[in-house]
C-alpha cells in the first residue's frame, strides 16, 4: 500500500488554478522525486499536500487517511515533515529552540540529530539567523526530522549551496534512505538526484505527465520535459 497517494489533485491560489490534475504515489521506504521545469507546480503540489494552498480538489491520502478535511497542523501531525524551499528557519530562535519547538516523540531525538549534523551541535545556542546558508539548510532538515515524520518532504534542499555542502546534504539523504526513511524530494540537479531516487513523477503545467522507475527516465524524456 502506498504511504502517500494523490489522484487528480487540483489546487488554486485565489481565483487562479495552479494544479490541474496531479497523480502521485509514494511507497513506504521509497525515495520519490518530483520533477519538472520551473513553475510547473512542484512546490504547489507539496503545499497542497499539507493544505497550505487555498482551495484544493481531488483525492489526497496519507497512510490510508484522506487529508482533504484536515487542517495543516493536523496533516503534519500524521507524520509529514516538510523542509521548505528557501530554508526558512525561525530566525530569532536558537538552533536548539528551532529543533525542540518541532520535536515529537520518536526515534529522532535531539542527540541523534546532532550526531547527523555535528555542526548544529556546535552552534546549539546560536540564533538561526547567524548561521550560514548550508547550516540553515541542515537546521531545516533537522527540524523536519525532529517531528519524526513518516514521510520527509524536501523542497529544493540543495538549492544555492556550494558543491561541498550539496554533497554533505546528499550524503545525509542517502543515509536516511538506507535507514528506511520515506522521502519525497524536489531538486533540479538530476545527476545528483537520480542515484538516490527509486521513482520519478514529472509535472508539466500542473499535471502529471509521466511517472515511473528512475531507471526508465530516458534522456529523451528528460529532454522533452526537463530540458531548458
Amino acid at each position, binding site marked *: 500500500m502506498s504511504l502517500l497517494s494523490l489522484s487528480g489533485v487540483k489546487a488554486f491560489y485565489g481565483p487562479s488554478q495552479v494544479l490541474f490534475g496531479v497523480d502521485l504515489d509514494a511507497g513506504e521506504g521509497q525515495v520519490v522525486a518530483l520533477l519538472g521545469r520551473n513553475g510547473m507546480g512542484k512546490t504547489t503540489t507539496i503545499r497542497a499536500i499539507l493544505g497550505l494552498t487555498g482551495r484544493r480538489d481531488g483525492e489526497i491520502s496519507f497512510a490510508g487517511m484522506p487529508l482533504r478535511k484536515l*487542517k495543516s497542523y493536523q496533516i503534519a501531525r500524521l507524520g509529514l515533515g516538510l523542509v521548505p524551499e528557501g530554508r526558512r528557519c525561525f*530566525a530569532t530562535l536558537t538552533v536548539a529552540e*528551532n529543533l525542540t519547538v518541532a520535536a515529537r516523540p520518536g526515534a529522532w531525538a535531539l542527540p541523534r540529530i546532532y550526531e547527523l549534523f555535528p555542526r548544529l551541535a556546535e552552534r546549539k545556542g546560536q540564533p538561526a539567523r547567524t548561521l550560514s546558508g548550508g547550516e540553515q539548510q541542515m537546521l531545516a532538515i533537522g527540524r523536519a526530522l525532529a517531528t519524526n515524520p513518516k514521510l520527509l518532504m524536501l523542497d529544493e534542499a540543495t538549492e544555492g549551496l556550494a558543491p561541498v555542502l550539496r554533497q554533505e546534504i546528499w550524503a545525509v539523504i542517502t543515509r536516511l534512505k538506507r535507514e528506511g526513511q520515506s522521502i519525497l524530494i524536489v531538486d533540479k540537479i538530476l545527476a545528483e538526484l537520480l542515484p538516490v531516487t527509486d521513482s520519478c513523477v514529472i509535472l508539466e503545467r500542473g499535471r502529471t505527465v509521466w511517472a515511473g522507475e528512475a531507471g526508465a527516465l530516458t534522456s529523451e524524456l528528460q529532454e522533452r520535459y526537463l530540458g531548458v
Partner: protein
Amino acid sequence: MTREFWINGVLALLLLAAPFIALAFGESFYVTLATRVAILALAAVGLNLALGLGGLVSFGHAAFFGIGGYAAGLLAAEGFTSMPVIWLIGAVVAGLVALATGAVSLRTSGVYFIMITLAFAQMIYYFVISWPTLGGEDGLSLALRNEFPFVNTLKPLDFFLIAYGLLLLALFIFARLRAARFGAALEGARQNETRLASLGIEVFPVRLWAFVLSAMITSVAGALYADLNRFVSPSMLSWHMSGELIVIVLLGGVGRLFGPVAGAAVFVLLEFALGGLTEHWQFFLGLILLGTVLFARGGLLALFAGKAHHG
C-alpha cells in the same frame, strides 16, 4: 554571561536599593515612587508576554489591570483582606475574561486585533462606570491596605518588598516560559504561522494561553496598584492605561526580559520629574518615545545591551 545579563542585574539591584536609600535620607515618598515602578513593571511584564513574545498588540490590557484592582476593592469591602487570596481571585477572573475575549480576538490579527481588544476593554470600562455597586465613576476606596501574612502592609518599605517580590516572580515565570517549548512556539508563531503549522503545531491555543497568562500577571499588578493608592479608580480600566502599558514595553524593549522594568522606571521618573514642571509632561514622553522608536528599536535595553538575542 552577556552584557544584558549584567544590565538586568544592575536594574534589579537599583530598584531594590532605591527605597532603602530613600529611607536613609528620611524621604519615604520615594519609596512609594519605587513601588509604583515595581507595580507598573509587573503589569508590563504581563503585557510583554503577549506583545513581546507573541507579537500580539493588545490595546486592552487595562481591562485586566482594572479587574485586579476591582477584585481588591470589592473583596476588601466584603471583608476578605488577604492579599494572596485577592490576587488569586483577581487572576482567575482576569484569566477567564481573557479566555473569552481572546477566543474571539485571536481569530483576527494586526490592526483588527488591536481594535477588538480595545473594544472589549471599553465595554468593560463602561459596564463598570455605569454600575453603582462598583462605585460608578467615583471608584472604590479601601479603608486600609489588604493584609499579607507576617507583614505590615501599611509600612511603605514592606509593601514595596511585596511588589518587588512579585515582580521578580513574574520575571522568573517570563524567563522560564521564553526558554520553554511554549515560548519558542509563541515566537515562531509571531514570525510565521504557516511554518509553525507545517511542523504540526496548532497556533491558536498557543496564543490563547499566552494571552490568558499575560492577563493574569497584569491583574495581580492591578490589585497591588489598588492597595498602593488605597483607591480603585475607573481610570485603571481606561484605554489610557492600556496605552501606558504599551509605551512602557516599547520604551524598555519589546520582548526583553527586563524591558518592562527599564520602561516603567523611565516612565515613572519622567512623570515625576517633568510632571512637577508642566502638566503637559506627556508631550516630552511622546518625544522620547519617538526617539526610541526611530533610533533605538528594541528600546532602552537595546541601546545599552546591544541587539536582542530574541527579538
